[in-house]
């Protein structure tokens, strides 16, 4: 077996438990999107092209409320800002590859693949086929994500309106929000953001969401100094699907 194929299979082996966790999240996302009024084909395209669950849910809820396109794009950009950090920490490992391969790795990078990749690279030799490992992680993840949202969307289209599936999107966000609040400054960020977004909800173009989010981020970062002596600030934990 070639080194490349072995690295690809290693990636697949590393990501396998994550794939199982992604299945219900993909199904629920597909069902929720249709419940929120999106066309099943559109959510499948979104999963294939955006490939980032929580930002897709944010976009779905904004599309359902008839938000302006720029507000949707800005919100997706904010939810996915963490990928800039992932990109920063993986860049030194992939410098020997050409731009197309690095583009493919970038496109396939999600929370789970970053976590597995950043654990694997330091353990392997310098000539380890890192690109093939990244594909072994990313390609199965992409296939599972697109196929489960597609299945969820087709399923959701069959379910009756009495099931109130439009409630699924805020509910999923709640499920992501609670595990993200692991320290007091993070709680400050969430409370300030949520309260302001609620108070400013009547503003047009979903400005309440944008102003609330930015104020919450600022409040969290500022309060970090106040809490520093009492409790160390933990990195936000990723929710398990």
């Amino acid at each position, binding site marked *: 077996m070639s080194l490349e194929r072995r690295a690809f299979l290693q990636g697949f082996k590393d990501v396998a438990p994550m794939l199982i966790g992604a299945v219900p999240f993909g199904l629920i996302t597909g069902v929720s999107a249709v419940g929120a009024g999106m066309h099943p084909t559109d959510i499948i395209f979104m999963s294939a092209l955006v490939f980032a669950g929580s*930002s897709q849910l944010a976009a779905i809820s904004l*599309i359902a409320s008839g938000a302006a*396109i720029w507000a949707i794009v800005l919100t997706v950009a904010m939810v996915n800002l963490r990928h800039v*950090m992932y990109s920063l920490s993986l860049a030194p490992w992939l410098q020997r590859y050409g731009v197309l391969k690095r583009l493919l790795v970038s496109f396939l990078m999600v929370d789970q693949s970053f976590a597995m990749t950043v654990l694997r690279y330091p353990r392997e030799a310098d000539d380890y086929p890192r690109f093939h490992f990244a594909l072994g992680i990313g390609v199965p993840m992409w296939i599972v994500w697109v196929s489960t949202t597609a299945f969820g969307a087709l399923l959701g289209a069959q379910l009756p309106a009495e099931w109130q599936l439009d409630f699924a999107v*805020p509910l999923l966000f709640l499920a992501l*929000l609670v*595990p993200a609040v692991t320290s007091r400054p993070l709680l400050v960020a969430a409370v300030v953001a949520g309260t302001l*977004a609620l108070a400013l909800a009547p503003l047009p173009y979903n400005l309440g969401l944008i102003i609330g989010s930015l104020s919450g981020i600022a409040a969290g970062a500022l309060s970090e100094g106040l809490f520093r002596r009492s409790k160390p600030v933990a990195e936000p934990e990723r929710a398990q699907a």
Partner: protein
Amino acid sequence: MSRPEVWLAIALAALVTLAERGSFLLTQSESPLPPLVRRCLRYVPAAVFAAITIPALAQPSGTGVGPVDVRLLAGIAAALVAWRTRNVTLTFVVGMVVLWLISWVLTASNA
């Protein structure tokens, strides 16, 4: 929103996400992020998720137990499950089932 508008939103969202993922991988820029930016990035998920969740849960659906909306009740039940278990699927299932149960009881008692 019309479907072409949805498609435009999807295309732009895909591009901006790829730009973020490729920010350092594609440019191979050596400059690290300033500490203040790193500090702010830690608060993005909690702040954005709260700004989306709280107004959506507080939105009245029209049915309630007295003055309390059924969706708020289902949301509180789901929040408790999320807090105790940190399990996304279980939180989702409990929230939906509580919503259905209360709605069903209300419908049955009104009939």
